[in-house]
Every structure is written in structure tokens, then in C-alpha cells.
């Protein structure tokens, strides 16, 4: 029988609804990041760089782009005969109807057969939501050294922010005695990074038992408290380095912009611990004789005829003559028309922004329909969107779909307004 020391299960089924229109058509792990990558590239690359060569990717919400991106795992050398990457989707089971993945732990429970077929000693649970580089093999050594049933990676956060995280309360030797989700008065500043290593036999037991009690079994809410109650040995593993949850429009924008700094906190330019991704083909970028590009990242195949400042461009982006792109993220295959001006915008993949469009101007009024998502002045354009020529768009706006001139009264979309046009 196949025998793997540790396999990884990557939870990639969540929508990430706080990313608004960016996750309308794709699951959060498939959202583009840093021009060239997708969020899921980070945990997948971490796996292969750590020697974890068997990865189950659990999908549920809008899996198409994720499936196409991962394929058979070629970019990460995860196209393997013995192991490799496997996409695990919810499915119909014999007899009664199928069921969705109801919670993070329930999703693992439903894939026990896959895990058993790999016969692992340990299991690594990851989420496809975070940007970081981490050597899981060192975390495994720690787990073995401590003889733990579970090890949870933690990050020291400022105490005043600890209330936003799942907090591990530990003894002096970092043994966990209590877990508190978003505590009002945090006793510790060790925030869970959502990265767990379990000794598989222990987790398996817990999953099977908890199944009877919680059909929506969740690691943070059910499994970890349950194992702590049982007195199982659980340790916190302190991680030092860059780790970013890109869960909101603002944090997504900021984390991208950090890459632009001359010496970024998170360095993609080192050969050690490379991040791999799937890109169609990798032609050069072109900057025309009139182009100005400063403080920006520009990905393969982009053609720049205008001006780009402090921005991130994906692959095959075209910035037309006379256009000015500032403080913005323009994802792959998008065209910015001639003489258009964009400020603090996120334009998703495969969009066409017409000529002479002005976007991101005016007052900072929160979005009318989703003020808790769009409120920091960033205007967001969903994928496959068309913005007609000559339109003026404010801040905190959302545009999605094949929009036409008549969707914009007097050729304007004021700050905080949205235009969403359904259909193909």
C-alpha cells in the first residue's frame, strides 16, 4: 500500500465574499495576486518546496478557474504518478443524495477515503486564502519533536489587533490549553494562521466522532476545542515572516502594493523558495517609446503605450496611448483604452475599459449597496466587464458585465454607485 509521511489538504472552496465582485465568478484562492500569480499558488508552492508532494484541493464555490489553473499540477511539479495533486469536489454518495461541504472539518471528513488511500502518518490542513512562504517540513519536525496530536501555526500579532483573530492561549512551552475565537479581552497574542498539522489517526477519530454532533463541523469551532477538552497534546508553532490574509478589498490592494516597494517585506525575486504558477505562455512585456512606467510591476506579454505609476499589471494587459494608470491593480488580459485615467482601481481579468474613461475620481462615498465591502475609495471592476468610451466613474463604485452607454446617466457613475449587468 502507498505510504506517505504527510499529505496536505487545501481548503479552497470558500467564496471570500468580502472581496466583493472579485469573487463573483471565482473562488477566493483563484483570485489573481501580484500580477502573475493566483492566491493558491502560495500554499501549493509551499507544499512542493517543503517536500509535500501529495495535495488534495477541496473545491466547492465556483471551481472552474481553479480547476483550469491547477490542471494536473504541472507548474508545481505535482503531476506525479505516486501522489500529486487531486481536486476533491463535493459529490453524490451511494444511497442517499450527496451533500455539500458544510464546514472546514466536515470537508475533510467527507474525504477520509482519499486520505486513507494515501495512508499518511500526518496531515497538513491549509487554506487557500493567505500570502506567505513557509517550510511545512520544519513545522512537521516540531510536531514530531513535541509528540503532539495537533500543531497549529501561529503569528504574534499586536495585542490591540488580537481580537480580530482566533487566539491560542498557551503555557510557557507553547503548549495550547485554550482556543478563543475573536476574544474581547485576549489573553495572548498568538493568532492562528489556519495552518494545522494533525497526527492523522487522532484527527480521524475526532472527525468521525464530531460528525454525529456537528454536521457543519469546523476546525476552529469544534475540532480544536474538542481535542483540547480531551486533553490531547497540542502545540503552537511560532511562524516568523510575512503572512497576509488578503480577505478584504483594502487588504488585497495593500498587500499587492507592498510588492512595489524597492525592498518589499515579501520578496518574490529570490530563487530560493520560488513561487510557481500556471501561465499560458510567457512572452516579454513591451514599453513603447512614449511609455512611462514607474514604481510598478508589469507581467509577461503586457504592452504599455501610456503611463503607469505605482500599479500592478497582470499578463497581456494593454495600456493605450495617453492613458494614465495610477495606484491601481489591472489583472490579466485587460485593455485600458487610449486617454483613459484610472486612480485607485482594481480591474479584474478580461475587461475592456474604453477610450477616454475617467475612473476613481471624486468624493470618497461608501458604496450604497455594500458599504462594508467598498468603503476605502477603491473602485472595482469585475471580470469580463466592458466600460464604454468616455464614461466618468467615481470612488467605491462597482461595475460588472457588458455595460452600455445607457447604463450611465449623463455618462457618469457617481461615487458609491454600482452598475451590474447580468447575462453573458
Amino acid at each position, binding site marked *: 500500500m502507498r505510504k506517505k509521511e504527510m499529505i496536505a489538504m487545501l481548503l479552497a472552496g470558500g467564496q471570500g465574499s468580502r472581496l466583493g465582485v472579485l469573487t463573483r465568478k471565482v473562488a477566493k484562492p483563484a483570485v489573481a495576486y501580484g500580477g502573475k500569480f493566483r492566491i493558491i499558488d502560495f500554499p501549493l508552492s509551499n507544499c512542493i518546496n517543503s517536500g509535500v508532494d501529495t495535495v488534495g484541493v477541496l473545491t466547492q464555490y465556483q471551481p472552474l478557474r481553479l480547476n483550469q489553473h491547477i490542471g494536473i499540477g504541472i507548474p508545481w511539479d505535482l503531476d506525479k504518478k505516486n501522489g500529486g495533486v487531486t481536486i476533491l469536489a463535493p459529490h453524490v454518495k451511494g444511497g442517499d443524495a450527496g451533500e455539500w461541504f458544510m464546514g472546514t472539518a466536515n470537508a475533510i471528513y467527507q474525504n477520509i477515503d482519499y486520505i486513507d488511500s494515501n495512508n499518511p502518518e500526518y496531515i497538513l490542513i491549509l487554506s487557500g486564502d493567505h500570502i506567505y512562504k513557509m517550510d511545512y517540513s520544519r513545522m512537521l519536525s516540531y510536531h514530531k519533536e513535541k509528540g503532539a496530536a495537533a500543531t497549529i501555526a501561529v503569528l504574534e500579532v499586536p495585542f490591540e489587533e488580537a481580537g480580530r483573530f482566533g487566539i491560542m492561549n498557551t503555557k510557557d512551552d507553547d503548549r495550547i490549553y485554550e482556543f478563543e475565537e475573536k476574544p474581547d479581552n485576549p489573553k495572548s497574542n498568538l493568532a492562528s494562521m489556519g495552518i494545522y498539522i494533525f497526527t492523522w489517526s487522532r484527527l480521524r477519530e475526532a472527525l468521525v466522532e464530531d460528525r454525529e454532533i456537528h454536521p457543519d463541523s469546523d476546525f476552529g469551532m469544534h475540532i480544536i476545542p474538542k481535542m483540547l477538552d480531551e486533553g490531547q497534546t497540542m502545540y503552537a508553532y511560532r511562524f516568523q515572516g510575512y503572512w497576509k490574509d488578503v480577505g478584504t478589498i483594502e487588504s488585497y490592494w495593500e498587500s499587492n502594493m507592498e510588492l512595489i516597494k524597492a525592498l518589499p517585506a515579501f520578496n518574490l525575486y529570490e530563487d530560493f523558495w520560488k513561487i510557481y504558477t500556471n501561465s499560458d*505562455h510567457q*512572452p516579454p512585456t513591451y514599453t513603447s517609446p512614449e511609455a512611462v512606467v514607474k514604481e510598478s*510591476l508589469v507581467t509577461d506579454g503586457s504592452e504599455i503605450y501610456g503611463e503607469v505609476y505605482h500599479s500592478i499589471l497582470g499578463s497581456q494587459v494593454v495600456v493605450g496611448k495617453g492613458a494614465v494608470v495610477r495606484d491601481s491593480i489591472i489583472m490579466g488580459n485587460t485593455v485600458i483604452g487610449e486617454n483613459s485615467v484610472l486612480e485607485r482601481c482594481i480591474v479584474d481579468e478580461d475587461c475592456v475599459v474604453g477610450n477616454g474613461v475617467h475612473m476613481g475620481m471624486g468624493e470618497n462615498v461608501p458604496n450604497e449597496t455594500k458599504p462594508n465591502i467598498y468603503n476605502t475609495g477603491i473602485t472595482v471592476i469585475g471580470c469580463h466587464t466592458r466600460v464604454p468610451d468616455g464614461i466618468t466613474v467615481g470612488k467605491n463604485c462597482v461595475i460588472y458585465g457588458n455595460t452600455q452607454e445607457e447604463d450611465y446617466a449623463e455618462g457618469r457613475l457617481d461615487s458609491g454607485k454600482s452598475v451590474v449587468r447580468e447575462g453573458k
Partner: protein
Amino acid sequence: MKAIGIILAGGNNEGRLGVLTDHRAAAALPIGSSYRAIDFTLSNMSNSGIGKVAVLTQYNSRSLKDHLTSSKWWDFGRKQGGLFVFTPYISSTDSNWFRGTADSIYQNMTYLMRSNEEYVVITSGDSIYKMDYHKLVQSHKEKGADITIAYQEMERKDLNNFGILETNEEGRLVSFEEKPEYPKTKKASLGTYVISRILLVDLLNEFVPQGKYDLVKDILLAKREELKIFGYEFNGYWNTISTGIGAYYKVNMDFLKKEIRDAFMNEYPYIETKAKDEPPAKYNKDADVRDAIVGSGTIFNGRVEHSVIFRKVYTGEGSVVKNSIIMEGCRIGKNCVVENAILDKEVILSDGQQVIGKSTQDLAILKKGTRL
């Protein structure tokens, strides 16, 4: 269409490319910021549905073989077909290096014998073009040809570097002159042929043991009257880097033209290369990059004008790069001037260095790994 491919990637082109081919085959030379020369023919094969391709190489083939470690970048078949790299080997009866194009195929006769495809498409790994071989083979079949030679009518001064065809109204070959001093026509051979696999085996068995090692000179020309040899006109962009530094420079600079980039990079099917997954190119605040193509992983702090910059290059503040080709991994310090130059891979210029060629016809060339 059932065909197999052979890419001749043998030589260093008799040293015409100088230090650039000191340590690599011409087919492995970097082209257009992201590619190597052989990517173009490999992609043509794959994009034309040819799933089984042999690359014949002998001269300094390490960098070429390194590039070809996997066939997956070009999507060649695996169980059916694949990518084969043949280098000369020593057997009990024969310890010869390849002595010519025909000889290199002859020494790997098993490849031809074990295939069952009807046709063989032969091309050369140092040509830069995008051709659908499907159409070439189609023309070969329609004409009932024994051999078809792709050609192009060229307006260029150095026609005497090419094989020159003369054809009759039907397109059948009337004469073929290899590198004639006074070319009769402007129809230059592109070094791309179609021949039936069985006929190729027969011809090689007949000629190579007689010491006739060159496919064109010794075999095609000798058989010109007996065999039905036809020309196939190709009108797309075609160029070769084999004729010298000037040609290599021009091919690279051609990618600064939109129509050339569109043809190769923006119009499907694409030219594929070995994936390197470098991060995006980074333009820092003092960067001023104009009229340039740029590979991924490059970081700019200085000025660049009318140049071809490969992957993972670094330019320092105050540096100026103009009319130059800068290959992968070069590092240009602060306040350097690089003009009319080719820097081969991993050249390192310390702050303030100047590398200036007299003109774009008289380039300064620094070999791989030079440190100044």
C-alpha cells in the same frame, strides 16, 4: 496528417556567431527576451499536430539539453511520441561525430525505422518563423512530390548565404544552388523540407555509406532530376540567426515591432518555451524604459532605450542601456553606459562601467559571465 519531425540543431554555424556560440549551439541562443531559438521550431511542430520530434545536436549541447529536459512545455505526446534528443554516441562499429546533416539522421536511423508516420518534416533549429507544417505537407501531397522545399522570395543583400531555388510554372524545382555567388532568383530555401519517411530511409541508406553526408548538397542535388522536388512558398516572417552576429541582432530587434510581436506572441497558436515562473518585471521610481521588450524577473532602476532585455536582469540607478541586447541574469551597476552592445548571460558590470560599440553594425560583445 501523420508526420514526425526532425530539428537539426547541430552546429555552432562555423563560428559565425563568435563568442555567443562558444558555449552553446546556435539553436540554444536566447531570442526575444523570453525564448531560445529552437522554441520557434519546437512550437511549430507541436502547433502543427506533430507529436513526435527528434532534435539532433552535437555541438556544445549542454545548454540545449538543459532547455529540453521536459517535453511538457511544448506539449509533445508522451506515450505516443514525445521529444527525443539525439547526440552522437560511440558504438562498436562507429564512433563518428555527426559528419553532416544526412549523417546525423542516418546515425539515428532507428528513430525513422520505429515510426509509422508517413512523412518527415525536417527543419533547422536556428530559424525564427511560425509555420503551419500541416499546410506544407498538404501541398506536398497535392503535388505528388517526393520532396518539398519551403522557400521565400527575399529582398536581401546576403542571398549568397542561402540555397537558391529555381522552379518552373508548376512549382517543380529546376535548379538549386547552395550559396551561389550570383543568385539566379530571389527564392531562398528556408531549410525546411517534407519527405516521405520510406524515401528518406532509402536515400540515407544509399548515400551515407558512400561518404555523402550532407542532405542538401550530396543527396537532394544529386537526385534532383530523378525525384519530383517541389517548392512551397512561405510568406510569413522568416529569419535566421545562423548567418552571423548582425542577423542575430536584427532578429532580436525585430521584436520591437508590433506586427512581429503580434504574429509570434499575441496570435494563437503561441510560441512556447520552458516555463521559468519569474515574477513580473519591476520598474522602480527612477526607471525610464522606452521602446524595449523585457523578460520577467527583471528589475529596472535606470534608463533603457530601444533594447531587448531578457529575464532577471538588474539595472542600477543612473545607468543607460541603448540599442543593446542584455541576456538573462546580467547585472548592470549604477551609472553604467551600455550602448550598441550584446551582453551574454550573467555579465556583471560594476558601477560606472562603459560598454559601447561603435554602431549597431559594429557591436561590443561581452561573453557569458564577464565581470567588469
